[in-house]
């Protein structure tokens, strides 16, 4: 398992997450899924793992949408990916053997350029007919296609910039109806991305268009998994690190995101040590390289961007949450957070007008990588990593 920082990891470099993959698969069996989580937490790697080992009965199609800025391109890519998958001379699913050829023929007939269809007086986007045709094809053929749409939120942002909000609204509305129509079929959609889907659609005022997704969040590794990952990384990359050191690293980081573990091991590797570092040496590395060093600019950015992504009121709430939480003895419960909100906005009526403010802020902070909510128990909320927590302590001292 080689140190990989930045790219999605595959094959032997991917730390298996069978439980997570199973959760996603089960969710997909029941409907369409929004696979959410902060940036650089391994979502794309999971998708690639699904492609490498697809769920039974599915043809997985992984599409990176960030290179597109139009709905037509998206549709075209879905069609192209479908075509490629069906034309592969690999062992085919029963469905493909039976209906694949016919499917392809029908697919060829759909004009994704959207130029030939003209309906006078219609406000319909040019791509709509092709989209509807594609949807009809999927529905009628009951194609067991699993569309893994990576960088979906980024794609929406690019479409907004390139065309208009109306275009995005039209696309999301179509997509919602498509999901609805396909809910009883075998086709499934899983959307994910490196920026928060909910915050993107909320900013566009289009939250209802995604509220049918079964939302699954990527969790950090469990402690045993994290320890195992550290040990394997150390062993396979010739980095001297013993179990005591591994545990100390987990304690320092406070969050078992694979990227943070990779980063820490890479810093030890850069030190070119010949024996496992003592806890004090690991403390120094953490302090100098991760908190104050290379990650410092990232932390600065995280601090500064709050005012860019939030309104004034939301920003005030977000800062208060982070400022208080970084000094708290334990993670916050829902009650703790509501009390904090109440301290900022004591007037009940005023606070009720901002009913979803707390939820939105928490959601955004989670998806931006600030906070982590436990999946079980009281589902308390803490900092997603000690790096950010310790930075906040210094910043707000």
């Amino acid at each position, binding site marked *: 398992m*080689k*140190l*990989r*920082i*930045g*790219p*999605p*990891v*595959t*094959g032997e470099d991917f730390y298996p997450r069978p439980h997570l993959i199973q959760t996603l698969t089960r969710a997909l069996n029941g409907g369409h899924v929004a696979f959410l989580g902060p*940036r*650089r937490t391994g979502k*794309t790697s999971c998708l*690639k793992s699904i492609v490498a080992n697809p769920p039974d009965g599915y043809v997985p199609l992984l599409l*990176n949408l*960030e*290179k597109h*800025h139009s709905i037509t391109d998206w549709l075209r890519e879905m069609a192209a990916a479908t075509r490629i998958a069906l034309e592969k001379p690999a062992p085919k699913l029963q469905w493909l053997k039976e209906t694949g050829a016919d499917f392809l023929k029908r697919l060829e007939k759909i004009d994704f350029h959207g130029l030939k269809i003209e309906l006078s007086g219609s406000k319909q986007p040019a791509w709509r007919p092709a989209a509807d045709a594609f949807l009809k094809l999927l529905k009628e053929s009951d194609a067991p296609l699993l569309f893994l749409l990576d*960088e979906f939120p*980024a794609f929406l*942002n*690019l479409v907004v*910039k*390139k065309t208009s909000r109306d275009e995005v609204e039209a696309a999301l509305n179509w997509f919602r109806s498509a999901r609805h129509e396909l809910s009883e079929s075998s086709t499934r959609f899983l959307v994910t991305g*490196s*920026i928060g889907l909910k915050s993107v659609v909320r900013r566009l005022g289009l939250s209802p268009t995604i509220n049918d997704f079964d939302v699954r969040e990527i969790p950090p590794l469990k402690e045993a998994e994290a320890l195992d990952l550290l040990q394997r990384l150390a062993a396979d990359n010739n980095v001297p690190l013993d179990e005591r050191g591994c545990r100390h690293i987990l304690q320092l980081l406070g969050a078992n995101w694979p*990227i943070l573990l990779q980063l820490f091991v*890479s810093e030890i*590797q*850069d030190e*070119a040590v010949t024996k496992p570092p003592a806890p004090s040496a690991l403390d120094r590395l953490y302090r100098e*390289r991760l908190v104050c*060093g*290379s990650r*410092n*600019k*990232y932390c*600065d*950015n*995280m601090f500064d*961007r709050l005012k*860019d992504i939030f309104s004034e009121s939301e920003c005030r709430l977000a800062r208060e949450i982070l400022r208080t939480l970084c000094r708290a003895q334990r993670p916050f419960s829902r009650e703790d957070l509501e009390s904090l909100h109440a301290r900022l906005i004591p007037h009940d009526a005023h606070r009720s007008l901002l009913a979803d403010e707390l939820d939105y802020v928490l959601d955004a902070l989670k998806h*931006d*990588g600030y906070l982590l909510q436990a999946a079980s128990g009281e589902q308390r909320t803490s900092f997603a990593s000690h790096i950010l927590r310790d930075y906040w302590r210094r910043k707000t001292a």
Partner: protein
Amino acid sequence: MSSPQQSFQPLALYNPALLPPHLLLAEFTARRPLLNSLVEIIRHNAPAKPLQHALLVGSRGMGKTTTLWAVAYTVKADPKLSRQWLPVVFDEESRRVGDLADFWLEALRQWEHAANDPGDRAQQLLDKADANIEDAARKAFLDKVDRSSRRALLLIDNLNDLLASIHDPEPLHRLRAFLMDDSRVMVLGTATRYFDQITDLDQPFYDFFRVFDLRPLTLEEMKTSLLALAQARGDKSIPKTLEERAGTIQGLYILTGGNPRLIKTFYRLLTEGLRGDIRTDLERLLDEFTPYFKAVVDALPVQQQRIFDAVALAWDPVEVGSVSRVTRLPSNQVSAQLRALGKAGLISEAASHPKRKTYLLADRFSNIHYLMRHGRAARNRFDWFVALVRLVFPDSQAETLARLARQSAECGAEGRRDAKDLLHSALARAESVESRRQLLHATFRESWDTGTLASLSDWLDLTEAKQHMPEVEIVAFFSQMPRDLRKMLGYKPADARWWCGVASALERREAWSLAAAAYRKAVELDPNFASAWGRLANILALFLSRITEAEELLRKAIEIDPKKSFFRATLGNVLTELGRYAEAEEAFKAAIELTPDSGYAWAWLGALLAEHPNRNPEAERAFRRAVQLDPTDDFSWTCLARVLARDPARISEARPNIVKALQLKPDDGPNQILFNELCGNTSTDWQSVLPNLAAWCAANPKNTETFDFTVDGFLQYARLTKPADALALLQALPDTSPFETLMDAFRAHADREHLNRLAPERQAIVIELLNRFTVRSGA
């Protein structure tokens, strides 16, 4: 491995591409573990898998570009890697990329260059002006890559600039998507700092690269680097230098901050010395090293600039309180701004007491630059240059600084100002009185026999210098002397005899005080230098009226060298001045006893005896002996004439002696007076002396007293004989030019018409001369 030729290879401080591959790799030691890590990443970037891309982050001079080239050469040299990858190094300063299409076009160009492909496909695409040039360029580039059966390793300097040039999110996302999905292209980039495109959560390339910080070298790494440089270039002196000059190396490490480019520059200084071009390189390095720093500082808010300035000028770590006092800003504001400056990477906390934080400029070399360029007192600006020179050349710092000052002083008014400031700084920063003296001596030695010494007072503060070296005045005097004389004398201030030579030269120019100071220097260096004591006493006695002190010094000289008659004779003179005649006579006699042939001893004895009329015969005998021993000494002749003339019956006996004296020293006033007294009315005596007088006047045209005496002498001769005889005497001279007017007067005396042939101004003088002649002669 190394050959003599390699020591002449450029260090390629700013363009590592100039170095031959084997030399670059041989010198690439300090960052070898990094190189190995990067090569391993390349090795494990398998086809059809998402690639690991990487980024090197480090400030200027940390070795980013050198590392890129090291990667390129290593991949090319590895049989397996070179089959899989073609390294493509982008031009460091390329400004051709404005958008993603330009990026692909540039990739195409650089690929063709790296592959020796003469295709110029990029130009063809530009000429075609395809509306979808981005896709066309990308496809053309990938076509070439595919046809080569290798993959492209793009080595891109200043990747942050490239991404900023593209800047639009849409193409950046496209590029990211490509690099994520397509394993044919790997990017290894560099940047001088972390930048928004990789640290901003909302940016496409957030956390996309594996980042390697190029940190400053440790002290051990610096030594390793210097040894590797030396070995690769066949320099054998460096290992010894590192051993013997541990303090210098430590100081170098602090000043360079472990910056590889600076270390290389200092390597060059260690091996080649501080020549003019090296100084230029150093100043250029200082200039080039901090433009980004300057731009950053200039962009700071005013208050932060003030605080930055205060910290920079302090050099040593400062507390908030100190900065607050200097800037007159409240402490809390200072603290806040220091934090902001720390966040920007400009200021860092020094390792100090945990409860009392101190701050200093993060980049130490930039601090030197700042002090040199922005020091409050203009003279401070060389402080750090001086510190550098002292550090690099501890054994020859005085000579080095002196040479630099001299070179600077030769460069006009500005250069002389620089030289003055440099020497002032060097004197101020010298560690001891002795090192200041060494510096001053080195300065004088350096310029002693050059034309630059003439302008010494323009580029050396003599008042300041005199505080450290009193004899500066003497040296400064020599700045006005002919260069040939200085060259002949040389500059040997440690040599007592040299100071004696200097004193003699000063005596000849009648610079009595300076000559005395020079003799004092001689005896300071050599307390047993009897001659110097004696000559010093002589000057004190004869020209500076310090008779008592002269006696003391003469007795010292006699003590050291009892057999030297000169000292006793001079002591006799001094005792005479002091009115101690009996002792003086004893001293003279003692001198004569030691050296019976000492003409001056006899002469001075005679002079003493002549003071007492009843001892005239003894005086006469003494003088006769003196003239016998030294016929060229006019003093003895004059004194003999004077003694003889005391007896009116012996005036005729006295006259030849004064004639002789005047012949020997025509310009001596007392000789002239005595001659007039004894021989003034004797034409033959005038006939004897006038040719010598005339020759002397011709050789010394500025001396009007002797000229007037000579003119009067010719007139007197004319009276005693006749004008025609005087004219004939004049005409017999080899050079009559000073006396043309006098000759005209004698002609006019014989022929009044001659007056009318003269110009009016000469006429007037001739008439005046005729009047003088007429009045005296009664004619």
